């Protein structure tokens, strides 16, 4: 791979059951992720996917392409630009810089209508042998 190359896109579907499972595993029980009536009262279409769950899927895209045996993901930043509702998502990324000892990647999540809802940047360093 070279700088400028796109990572293979990763598509998955986030269900309400996924939100329940993630809430338990991540100790994140904020009502934004389960109280549909509250969210609709506030003008949202539905409950929201945990931002961190989206980030986890995006990180999964990165560590699948650059596995921990060879690369250590040691820094990342994520911006949640628009609400992400349960449903289909597509994660993708572009290599910004690729050196022998480090990689920088821009990542994104698009929702089922193709809107970019989350953007991120990842920094990886060569794993110590």
């Amino acid at each position, binding site marked *: 791979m070279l700088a400028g190359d796109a990572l293979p896109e990763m598509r998955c579907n986030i269900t309400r059951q996924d939100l329940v499972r993630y809430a*338990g*595993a991540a100790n994140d029980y904020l009502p934004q992720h389960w109280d549909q009536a509250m969210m609709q009262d*506030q003008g949202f279409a539905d409950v*929201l996917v945990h*931002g961190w769950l989206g980030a*986890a899927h995006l990180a*999964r895209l990165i560590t*699948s392409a650059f596995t*921990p045996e060879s690369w250590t993901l040691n820094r990342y930043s994520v911006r949640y630009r628009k609400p992400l509702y349960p449903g289909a998502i597509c994660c993708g990324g572009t290599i910004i810089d690729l050196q022998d000892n480090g990689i920088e990647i821009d990542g994104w999540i698009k929702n089922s209508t193709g809107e970019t809802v989350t953007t991120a940047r990842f920094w990886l360093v060569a794993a110590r042998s």
Partner: protein
Amino acid sequence: MTMSAEVAAAFARAQARTGMEMPTVRFAIDRSDLRRYARACNETLAAYVNGDEAPPTFISSLQTEGMVASQLFEKDLPFASKLHSDDVVELHRPIRAGDILFATGRYCGAEIKNGRNGPMLFQTAEMILRDEAGLPVGRVASTLVSF
């Protein structure tokens, strides 16, 4: 920027928290916690699925307790909605099963920005994670936006 007295007071309360630290919280990282988290994220890499090593976002699962988030952020706000806005993570080494870690939460600051529908209050807090020797393991800074 014009803001109501109510919003200005909430902003002042939030700003006054800057530098506030929460008591340190101890975590014993269990392999089953790592496995459960990996499953919840649809992880497929063996090191994550087997619970040998934490996926890179696992650090977030320590925030609720580790930052004492419910007390760290200003909650008495004249806004109807609150959302997660940004995260910044630094990992000095992978978190592994058997680790004993110590987390300290700190309020980093507050900022007001003008949104399409009025003022938006951004609050940022961080959690610093160290091991038993006091060596840094990770840091996560999260920003919430109220509007």
